[in-house]
Each structure stands twice: as structure tokens, then as C-alpha cells.
């Protein structure tokens, strides 16, 4: 029942789109039918294969940015949770960086790091690091007092307490942070490639937009959507595997 309604919704939406595109608008520089988009996507994937270089370029930027964000965000979040002094000193800068729209930093980063891959990775990093950091911080903070007391009564040292109790207890939070970071990271990729790039999905979209090539524009946007949904689902599966004791954990 539930699946059927969703299917009906998607199908009727596509049919409506097709009808609007062919009967109402009828101008291929404004809107094209989903059939044209699918044909174009098929062509770009299997005939000319022109999609892949863009996909690969964007994927590297995304993965590097995510990786560095995780490597910086998790330890920093832990440090801030365990040491109130660090938190007080770092907090104002964090809040300012976090609440500023990331795109404002793009020109500055471009100025500092050039238009190579470094500035792009930095933009993705800036997008991903905060959800990861905040969730690691929060995860470490809300570790149940009873767990810590059990550890204490077993006379665990500081390191052992951290490895055996604090770390595992905050894993679900970190994974949730990573999941939130996926969407922000993809936005970061698009922003980064918009400011001076010669390949990548973001470049594909903006080039298509500027040349009014609507089919390619739709294909690019669709690839972004698919990547976002897949990344989200994959992390959800990892989350369920890594933390089987938790049923569902949403931080929307």
C-alpha cells in the first residue's frame, strides 16, 4: 500500500512533467520531457561516456574533503567535550564559522589556495566538519553516567575508559554526523566547482545552465540527487551494522 502510493506519485509526477513539457511549454530551452533527459543520461553514461571524468573529479574532491573533516572533526569534538577550557576558547570561533554561509568563504579560500583541488577540498571540508564535530562533541557529552561509573568501579585508567566506554558510546552520534555531512559535502562540491573549475559535476551543471542546454542540466542535477540519496542510505546501513543495539536514531 505504502510502496504503491509512492510509485503512483512518482509515475504521475513524471507523466505530468512530460505533458507540461510537450504540450504546454514546448520550448526545449526552458523545459524538456523526462524521456529526453533519460535518453541524454543514457547517452552520457554508455555511448559517449562523457559523464565519468566529471563524476570522478567530483568524487575525489568529496572523499578527500569528507576524510579530512572526519579526521579533524572527531578528535576536536572529543577534545572540546572533555576539556571545558578548550571549549570556551574555541567556541566563539566555531559558532562564527558554523553560522556563516559557507559560500562566503569560497572567494577567500580561492584567494589563498588557488583554483586547484586544494581550495575545493577546503570548501567541502568546511561544509562537512561541523556536523561531524558537533555530533562527536554531543556524543561524548551525553555518555551515560552509569557507563562511566561501571568503568570506574572496574578501575579503568583514563585511556582504557576512553577506548572501552566513551568511544563506543559516541559512535552512533559520529555516524549520524557523517550522515548529515554527506548532503553538506555535496553542496560544497557544487559550490567549489562553480568557482573556477574545468571538470566535475558542478562545472557540468553551470556550463549547461549558461549554454541553455537543459537536458544536460537535468542529468547533472539528477546525478547529484542520486549521489545524495545513495550516500545517505549507505551511511544508514553502516550505522545499523556498527550500532546494532540502537534501533533508530534520527537527528533531523
Amino acid at each position, binding site marked *: 500500500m505504502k510502496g504503491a502510493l509512492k510509485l503512483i*506519485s512518482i509515475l504521475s509526477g513524471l507523466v505530468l512533467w512530460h505533458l507540461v513539457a510537450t504540450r504546454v511549454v514546448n520550448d526545449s530551452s526552458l523545459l524538456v520531457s523526462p524521456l529526453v533527459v533519460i535518453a541524454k543520461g543514457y547517452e552520457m553514461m554508455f555511448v559517449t561516456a562523457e559523464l565519468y571524468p566529471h563524476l570522478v573529479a567530483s568524487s575525489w574532491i568529496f572523499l578527500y574533503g569528507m576524510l579530512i573533516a572526519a579526521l579533524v572533526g572527531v578528535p576536536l569534538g572529543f577534545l572540546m567535550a572533555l576539556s*571545558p577550557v578548550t571549549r*570556551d576558547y574555541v567556541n566563539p570561533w566555531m559558532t562564527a564559522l558554523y553560522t556563516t554561509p559557507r*559560500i562566503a568563504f569560497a572567494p577567500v579560500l580561492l584567494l589563498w589556495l588557488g583554483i586547484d583541488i586544494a581550495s575545493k577540498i577546503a570548501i567541502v571540508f568546511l561544509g562537512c566538519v561541523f556536523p561531524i564535530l558537533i555530533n562527536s562533541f554531543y556524543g561524548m557529552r551525553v555518555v551515560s553516567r552509569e557507563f562511566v561509573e561501571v568503568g570506574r568501579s572496574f578501575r579503568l585508567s583514563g585511556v582504557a575508559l576512553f577506548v572501552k566506554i566513551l568511544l563506543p558510546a559516541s559512535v552512533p552520534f559520529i555516524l549520524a554526523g557523517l550522515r548529515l555531512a554527506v548532503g553538506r559535502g555535496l553542496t560544497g562540491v557544487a559550490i567549489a566547482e562553480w568557482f573556477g573549475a574545468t571538470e566535475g559535476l558542478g562545472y557540468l551543471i553551470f556550463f549547461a545552465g549558461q549554454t541553455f542546454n537543459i537536458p544536460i542540466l537535468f542529468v547533472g542535477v539528477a546525478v547529484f540527487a542520486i549521489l545524495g540519496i545513495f550516500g545517505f542510505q549507505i551511511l544508514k546501513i553502516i550505522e545499523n551494522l556498527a550500532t546494532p543495539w540502537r534501533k533508530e536514531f534520527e537527528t533531523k
Partner: protein
Amino acid sequence: MPGQALRRGCLSIAGGLLLWEILTRLLLENELLIPPPTSVLRSLWKLTLSGELNRHLSATLFEFVCGFSTACIVGILLGYLMGRYRWFDDLMDPWIATLYSIPVIAFVPFIIIWFGIGLFSKIIVVFKITAVAIMLNTAAGIKTIDPVWLELSNSLRLSPWETTYKIRLPAALPYIITGMRLGVGRALLGVIVAELMAANAGLGYLLRDASETWDSPKLFVAVVLLAAMGVGSFILIRKGEQKLAPWRETAEW
């Protein structure tokens, strides 16, 4: 102790700014890469005096307010329907998931092609980026309402309208506020993206203008103003959240 935290925070900001000033004065001869805070301030003062800043700020704020309030109204309405009626939720779900996972910036070329580069297209961008968060949170709030309250409204013989107005909406309020808080930051991003793409006023335009003319102090003025707007709206919403839903615990940020 909040007083101590505040003092350390101020100390950290002041120390950072001082260090920034000294380092840039001593090490860099060229202001292009990192301008010292004092020249950023001077640039800010100049922009204020010439009235240019006022124009940019009011353009950005106007677009922000229009887009955000539209998103709130539509988002809460649709979210309410999604929370109440299962079939509506199922119907909307695939489209919302798709819309949600497309970066707004990838959407902007479409919006410019369809709606031009005027105020309307900016409102649409802000709407797109904000409405989903508010919608999903409102739906979650309506869905997770405590059944005891509904039984109470039954035994008080409240009409459906009164149930909505007196029970369901207040119960969902904290969720709605959370959605709005998430939306504010995203809305600001949306305005800036739209203005960077095509505009003749606004902070996004200022940003683009400064970066294309290599005017670093001006660039930093834009960045600092955006940071201030982000922090300001964030604090405002958090205050509102505490006031409207004081029972709800919030994370540190």
C-alpha cells in the same frame, strides 16, 4: 559557570583579532592575501558612509524575509497535512526526498532560466532551501503527538478545528521551531547563492564584486557581515526556542 565561559570567549576573540593584526602587519607587506582587521574596519566605515552598505544590506534582508516567511507558511501547512494524513505523506515523500538531496546551488541555473534574475527568483531559492526542513519537522511534530492529549480533546468534545488549534499545533511547536532554526542558516546561504549568480545589490553581490576586483578588505567586510548575520539570526532563534518551548533541551550549538 556561564560568566567564565563568556569571559574566556571574549578573551579568545580579542586575542585572535590582536594576533591577526600583529601577524599581518609584521609578516605581510601586501594586503591582498589577508588584510589586517583595522583595514577591514576602515573599509566597513567607508562603505557605511557612502550608503552603499545600506543598499546591499536592505536588499539581502528583504529577500531573506520574503523567502523565509513564504517558506514558513507553506512548510507548516504542507507539513501539517503530511503529519495528519498518511496518504499525503506517501504521495509527497519521493519528491521531497529528491528535492532535499539536490544541492540548492545546482538548482539555481534552472531558477534563473525559469524565473529570471529579479526578486522573485531569489524568493524561490530561499523557499526551496528552507521549506523542506520546516515541512519535515512539522510533520514529525504532528506525528509524534502524545495520544493522551488527543483523548483529552475527545473527552472535552473539542471540534476538529479546536483540536488542531489548541492541541496539535502547540504540541508540534518545538519541532516547528527546530525546523525554522535549521532553515535560517540555509536560507541565508540561499540568498547569497542567488545573489552571487545574478544580482545588482545585496551582500552576495558585494562579495562577488570584491572578489572580482581583488579588493580584499571589502571581501572581508562582506564575510564578516555575513558571519554577523548568521550568528545574530541563530541566537535570535535559539532565544525564541527557549521562550516558546522551554521544556525542550537543546544541544550546545
